[in-house]
């Protein structure tokens, strides 16, 4: 297990968490719809696979930042949709701030002349 690999995973995980929380801030959605929204809003830059999506959703649920609710769709299929909790809202604004700081800091380095 190399440190570099771990770091990369951590970074991706954090980014994915942030995107999921933000998407769910707008409306409750189920897993596929969340991935769809991420893909649409990033113009295809992020294609979230199930292997990343579901572990992330369950992790966020476990943290209490999102809550899963079961409904049935028009085909009478059980669908688990997720909504942002109050704690999730707090987490989202904290992560947003962190993200903005990271972007601002990296931009400063890139803009060095």
């Amino acid at each position, binding site marked *: *297990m190399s*440190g570099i690999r771990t770091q990369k995973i951590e970074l991706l995980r954090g980014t994915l968490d942030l995107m999921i929380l933000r998407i769910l801030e707008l409306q409750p959605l*189920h*897993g*596929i719809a969340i991935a769809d929204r991420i893909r649409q809003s990033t113009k295809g830059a992020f294609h979230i*696979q*199930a*292997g990343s999506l*579901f*572990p*992330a959703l*369950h*992790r966020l*649920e*476990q*943290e*209490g*930042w999102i*809550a899963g609710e*079961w409904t049935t769709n028009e085909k009478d*299929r*059980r*669908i*688990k949709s997720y909504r942002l*909790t109050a*704690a999730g809202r707090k987490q989202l604004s904290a992560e947003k701030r962190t993200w903005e700081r990271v972007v601002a800091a990296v931009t400063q380095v890139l803009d060095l002349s």
Partner: protein
Amino acid sequence: MPFLSKMISFWKNLFRRQQVEADLNDELQAYVEEMAERRSQAGVAPEAAREAVLQELGGIERIKDLVRQQRIGFGDYRRAAVIVVVALIAFVSGASTAVGVVRWHAAATVEQSSASAPPKTAPARERPPVLEGRVVDDATGEPIPYVEIGLHETPIRRFTYTDDMGHFVFTNPPSHFYSLESGTQRWAITHVSPLLSSCASSDPDKDFFEFQPSKAVSVKAKDGQPREGELVVFHGVIKGKPYPPPGQEFRRFRYSQSVVELRAVNLAPGKMADLGTEFTAGGAK
């Protein structure tokens, strides 16, 4: 409330496992069916579409495993008797317990890639010290995956999970005494493997640390319940000086009794089976 929901989640994972598993199955099946439908709408035959989705996933079971790794308390709790094979106490200062499944790497291990490069252009990078171990089932010897393991360094606790093979790793452990514990009461069993009863340093000229063969004792925990376990005496040489100093004895209680499910009810934040504080050795026979 995050803590409350964590506890609810933990409780569900622990005692409503079948329900959690069934829900997970439904959730993933719904995913597969919807993705397959999309493909068949694009003209692919339904069976082939489903097949393609499953292939893309690498199988539903793979996704389930990935999800399970995220859920605290999802290990196989029905295996009551468990040994958490850990070094209960160790030194960072070079003491190496290169015995059995618990290994203590000294800080000077050179990474292979660095070692092959010319030393002047690429100075050898030191591998960060790690403490690793394995959690195995007392009864069967099977590794236990996805158990939370805490590294307790007063007042800080760090956590990790065992992997598929019951293996866990902490990098940069503290440079003084610490203890390892399972992160949940359910797994709060710290029975140091008999393999550790005579561990030697990898560098005999430097420090060494020995775990003397232990004796079985029964002690009274703070909750008034008796605990069966062992009393262990440690001694060694650290930086050329004997430890503990002459006339002193360093003892640590460790026990091998499994913690029943009921304990999860009383699970409080930060309250874990830290043997150093939760138990008094006064009841030792």
